[in-house]
């Protein structure tokens, strides 16, 4: 009772359990394997194309960064739902949740413990990918800040997807259903934001057709809806990393208003902030769901 700071008991337990199960090692090995083959693939492609120009163009290896980065994000988006989907439903299936709920630990701490456990695996996954990533960085001439930035992005994405996964795990009975639901929600958010943008675009266009006057700004008006796409800051980050431009540069040329210009300039922190808040909301909802006092049927 001396130190107030205590490691979340669930995280502690999951680490003990996790270290004993082989699942994680397999996942990490699979990930390293996939990344390595990506590198080989890119080297081959760039090798072939550059050989026409005579001599190997190392600068073209810069594409390794978005390719590997996107691969890592994609794998993470599939891996985290699998890891987290059993977090609550698994406890229910195993009938261990009720016991946990008779202890003073709060449902939100349970949820956080589950999230941190998933994040531990995400971090191991990132560490395992360092050697492969390093090749891209050294050969492609990118700065270590970019690698650090990518890791921040991966952590952020892990938290987002993990929160959705834990939420899904708290509302459905079967873990497998939770995995699928998480992925469906993810795709739904991506398609949903695109759809809203498209509807906005169409209505501006219709306005233009009927009145004959709509500025380019009107057309760009719906773009901020993509702030709600959790991948948009990663996209912006990638663009910034390899091309020295950004969503800001792309859009600001249109001379948009002051508010929009701030949004575009700080797209990454704003979007990450929004999405982390949404994650928090998902975690809160998950906590409310497992509270048990909520009507359980």
């Amino acid at each position: 009772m001396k130190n107030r700071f205590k490691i979340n008991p669930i995280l502690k337990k999951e680490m003990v359990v996790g270290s004993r199960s082989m699942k994680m090692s397999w996942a990490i090995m699979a990930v390293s394997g996939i990344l390595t083959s990506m590198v080989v693939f890119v080297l081959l492609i760039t090798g072939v194309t550059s050989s026409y120009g005579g001599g190997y163009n190392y600068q073209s290896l810069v594409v390794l960064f978005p390719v590997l980065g996107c691969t890592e994000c994609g794998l993470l988006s599939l891996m985290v739902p699998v890891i987290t989907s059993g977090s609550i439903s698994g406890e229910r299936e195993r009938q261990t949740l009720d016991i946990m709920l008779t202890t003073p630990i709060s449902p939100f701490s349970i949820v956080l413990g589950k999230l941190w456990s998933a994040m531990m695996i995400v971090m191991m996954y990132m560490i395992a990918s360092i050697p492969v990533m390093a090749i891209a960085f050294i050969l492609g001439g990118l700065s270590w800040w970019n690698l650090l930035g990518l890791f921040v992005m991966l952590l952020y994405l892990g938290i987002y997807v993990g929160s959705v996964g834990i939420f899904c795990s708290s509302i459905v009975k079967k873990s497998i259903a939770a995995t699928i639901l998480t992925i469906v929600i993810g795709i739904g958010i991506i398609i949903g934001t695109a759809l809203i943008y498209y509807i906005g675009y169409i209505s501006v266009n219709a306005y233009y057709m009927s009145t004959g006057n709509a500025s380019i700004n009107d057309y760009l008006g719906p773009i901020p809806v993509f702030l709600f796409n959790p991948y948009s800051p990663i996209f912006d980050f990638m663009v910034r990393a390899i091309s020295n431009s950004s969503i800001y540069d792309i859009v600001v040329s249109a001379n948009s208003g002051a508010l929009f210009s701030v949004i575009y300039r700080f797209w990454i922190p704003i979007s990450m902030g929004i999405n982390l808040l949404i994650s928090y909301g998902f975690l809160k909802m998950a906590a409310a769901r497992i509270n048990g006092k909520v009507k359980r049927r």
Partner: protein
Amino acid sequence: MLVIENLTKRYGKFLAVDNLNLHIEKGEIFGFVGPNGAGKTTTMKIVCGLLDATSGNVTIDGVDALKNSDDIKRKVGYVPDFFGVYDNLKTMEYMEFFGSMYGMSKEDVDEIADGLLELVNLSDKKDVFVDTLSRGMKQRLCVARALIHNPDLLVLDEPNSGLDPRARFEMKEVLKNLGAMGKTIIISSHILPELSEMCTSIGIMDKGHLITSGHVDEIMNESGGNSKIHIRIADMHGTEKSQPDKTEMTDSIDLEADDNAAAKQEKLKEDTYSRDKDRIQTLLMEQPNVTKVKFTEDEIIVSFNGDEKASATLLKNIIGLGINVSAFYKEKEDLESLFLEITDGGADE
């Protein structure tokens, strides 16, 4: 210690617990009895803070259990009817995990867990993976786990289900020890004779109602107004007390070996028997506290709702009436038949 007042729980429209009132004193071992679906688990979950009540009050040690569920959780240990354990976790780690949920340090948990595992007879299983333990061991481990934070009230939902006789015995010993340690314990069970052995008081529940509760002896004595008295009457089929001369007569007829007469005699015998039966029935039914009279092969079973004194009076009366009582005993009613009777109104009809 535990006071439940007007507790009602609805699942949607379904009334699972209906206006339940219960007082359990400190140090009592309270047996919660009732058929499937009676509402025992529901009540226990509410007490443990796992479910919200629809209405009513629950106080533990004067603390409102429905409002201060955090305080309550430190006072209560719960062993659910069904539960699982984690894979890849050892017994001692399992205890440490739950200890840490109560904010206990590893050292504290280790010290307490040692004692608890000893209590539940699992000291030799400290380094075994919990999912490899037998069912009975898991059950006992769960009891030890429920005690890790030294709760005042222990709530056990059917801790004996699925255990073999040996494991049940061991569980019973564990619970008796805990009772001796001064813990207040609530146990629900279907294994009623065992409850009567270890509980200080019991409550019988059916369809959400508490039908009766009180000390085991009281309940056994009152037994909801339905104890049974078995009465044997000397040679009920043959000898007729009302016609003492007839016996000799019969003998003399027999000597003549007249078939016709024998048949006649048989008929007479039967007639007197059924006449007698009616007479005895009427006489018995006239007695105070007698609710029902039933004839079996060789006994009369009287449903009786009086106490010891009243049954003595009954015996005196029927002897006084000239009935030749050869045996008179009160069925030693165990909880099992009491339970069946109370929860299934008139099962022996």
